[in-house]
């Protein structure tokens, strides 16, 4: 019976061959698993299958049918390739921020900083910016070409790594902070990083052997360009190959989904959720909250690194203007609207917000113009809905909070928190207990120091589990 108490044993695992065999077996098993799913929940599986097929066919459909139709027959609000690319870039960021806010419950309002770090990392490693150098790797540029030009598959991971390192660096000093305080510090970080990139031009600096005279570190307000487009296996994915880029981004989003899902279902994911639910209890149950929160910050930030690398490489230019505070807020709004905690929800949120912002509003403006011309009132065409995007987002947010606070596709946790408990819950004696405890807590003062300061503070209240370690004397 005492095997119950012993921790699980760690037998030898087969290593790489076993892993490959496992992957192969899973792949081979896939059709069977799919059929089983189809039998278990036919409608849901069928719907999802159609959706997946649609997602992969859509870019083609868009290019071959929708865009020409929209141009020649009747204007539809169909997004162009760049809009789709940015829908997916923001979806990647939403997946990452959902790890920090949704899983671990750490309100991060400076997420744009990691997006910027990813973008500038990509810019540094694939542009003529460092014109004094000439480092070419797997590049078809002529020898001696100025700047660093590394291949995209290195840049992509380097950007994620840099973002993750800075994520952990931001996490380190803020670990003792909870809730609002954390939000304020991350907000500050989100402001500092873009300002840094905007101003580190004409830098004069001297420290020991380091001598910088009029050094241009970040390109200043002009940013860095031209940045090499992403290129894999000889296929280019830059802005002039938007159609290819959509598929590259789809692959990145799918990879992000798999990573986030795997993390969610692991020991780490459970530890994040435990911290979100009750940080003190999690700590007492053996979760190293410092390391776990750093990991949430770092891994969450790495997704913004992916997104930043794509932004810079796809557009071939990056400036600090891309990384305003409002972008941080935009990503937070996306995950709130979509459904914090649910990966599919936050993707839906990101795609919806980007689509409405970049496509629907512009389309609506043009239609207003058409209508204005048709009814002989050209003033109607002066209204530009795109200018109202944040106003509309605000209204949408207010309406959501009123009618569906858990988001479009909520996680089960959020839905339960924000709605009354269903009647079948066995709350009987627990509810009674809660009332009793409240009475007891009122009788025994919570704040010990207040008791001590009271004139006849004889009976010291038991300090209840106050947050944070009380570290006096150490």
């Amino acid at each position: 019976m005492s095997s119950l108490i012993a921790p699980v044993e760690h037998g030898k695992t087969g290593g790489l061959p076993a892993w490959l065999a496992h992957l192969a077996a899973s792949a081979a098993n896939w059709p069977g698993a799919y059929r089983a799913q189809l039998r278990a929940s036919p409608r849901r599986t069928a719907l999802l299958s159609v959706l997946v097929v649609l997602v992969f066919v859509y870019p083609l459909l868009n290019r071959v049918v929708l865009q020409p139709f929209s141009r020649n027959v009747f204007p539809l609000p169909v997004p162009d390739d760049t809009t789709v690319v940015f829908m997916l870039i923001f979806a990647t960021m939403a997946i990452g921020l959902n790890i920090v806010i949704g899983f671990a419950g750490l309100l991060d309002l400076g997420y744009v900083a990691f997006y910027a770090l990813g973008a500038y990392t990509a810019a540094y490693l694939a542009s003529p910016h460092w014109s004094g150098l000439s480092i070419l790797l797997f590049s078809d540029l002529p020898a001696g070409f100025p700047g660093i030009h590394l291949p995209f598959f290195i840049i992509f991971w380097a950007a994620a790594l840099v973002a993750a390192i800075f994520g952990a660096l931001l996490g380190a000093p803020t670990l003792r902070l909870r809730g609002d305080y954390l939000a304020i510090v991350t907000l500050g970080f989100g402001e500092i990083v873009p300002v840094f990139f905007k101003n580190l031009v004409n830098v004069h600096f001297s420290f020991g052997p380091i001598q910088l005279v009029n050094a241009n570190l970040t390109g200043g307000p002009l940013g860095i360009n031209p940045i090499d487009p992403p290129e894999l296996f000889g296929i280019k994915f830059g802005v002039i190959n938007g159609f290819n880029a959509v598929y590259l981004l789809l692959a990145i989003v799918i990879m992000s989904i798999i990573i986030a899902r795997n993390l969610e279902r692991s020991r780490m994911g459970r530890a994040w959720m435990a911290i979100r639910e009750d940080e003190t209890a999690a700590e007492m149950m053996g979760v190293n909250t410092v390391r776990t929160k750093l990991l949430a910050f770092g891994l969450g930030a790495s997704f913004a690194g992916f997104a930043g690398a794509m932004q810079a490489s796809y557009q071939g230019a990056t400036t600090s203007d891309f990384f305003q505070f409002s972008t941080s807020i935009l990503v937070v709004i996306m995950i709130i609207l979509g459904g914090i905690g649910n990966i599919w929800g936050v993707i839906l949120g990101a795609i919806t917000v980007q689509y409405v912002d970049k496509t629907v509003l512009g389309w609506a403006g043009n239609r207003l113009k058409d209508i204005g011309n048709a009814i002989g009132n050209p003033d109607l065409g002066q209204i530009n809905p795109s200018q109202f995007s944040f106003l509309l987002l605000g209204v949408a947010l207010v309406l959501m909070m009123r009618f569906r606070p858990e988001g479009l596709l909520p996680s089960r946790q959020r839905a339960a928190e924000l709605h009354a408990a269903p009647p079948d819950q066995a709350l009987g004696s627990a509810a009674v207990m809660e009332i009793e405890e409240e009475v007891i807590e009122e009788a025994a003062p919570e704040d010990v120091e207040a008791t001590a300061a009271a004139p006849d503070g004889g009976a010291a209240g038991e300090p209840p589990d106050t947050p944070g370690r009380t570290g006096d004397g150490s």
Partner: protein
Amino acid sequence: MSAMAGAPLAELRTGQVPDDQLLVRARAVTKRFGGLVAVNSVDFDIPRGAIVSLIGPNGAGKTTFFNMITGYYVPTRGDISFDGHPIVSMKGDRVRSKKPHEVTALGIGRTFQNIRLFSTMSALDNVLVGQHVHLRSHWWDAVLRTPLLLAEEERATERAHALLDFLGLGARAHTWARNLPYGDQRRLEIARALATSPKLLLLDEPTAGMNASETRDMTDLIRRLRAELGLTVLLIEHDMRVVMGISDRVTVLDYGEVLAEGSPAEVRANPRVIEAYLGRGAAEEG
């Protein structure tokens, strides 16, 4: 579990049990909150295999003492060792304390006075979080779903189910913690604490808010924890029937100091204890 050879466990006073038979050895532990001395120079021993109770009026410093054993509060002064490992030690004037997760890893599990489960996680996940400290998979194992992670998750889940079965929660594995009835929540907290593979289990008022039959079940459960799992138990409890019924030894705290200790019968008869609980008049009448 057998008591030590020689004198019966109940009669032993702090300092009388040889150190190698002690699971917890606390000396001169003091905790100040500002000007208030919550725990004042307390010596306290827990022999291996014992069920020891800590009682006292509200505000006597019981929970504060608990929180120092688990590393949640850093004492102002004092030494606490557990199973030969220092949890709190003095280095000159500086107090060094292990962090709560390190203490958990050493083998101390606890429950809370006010239930603190992870409320929107399933019973099973709550127990799996308890195993966290003994699992070895890293985040990259999770991302790649390596054989290490798969094997470990399978074993951990199996063990979590076994623990839930042991506590009679087998059918509730996939229910959210907060949707469980009150008594089940108390038991789930114990299951989660057992998942940390403790040698010492700290129970903070495990029968609070329970009716007579639920209290009996809980008392039986605590006995089973020692008999079947070989655990040492430290209990904070207000229900004197529970305390007197299952404890080998009882220590009474009042105003942060040890007022009395010994067997339940001795403590019950101690006039100072009666005075602390019922007032001076009652002690004189008795």
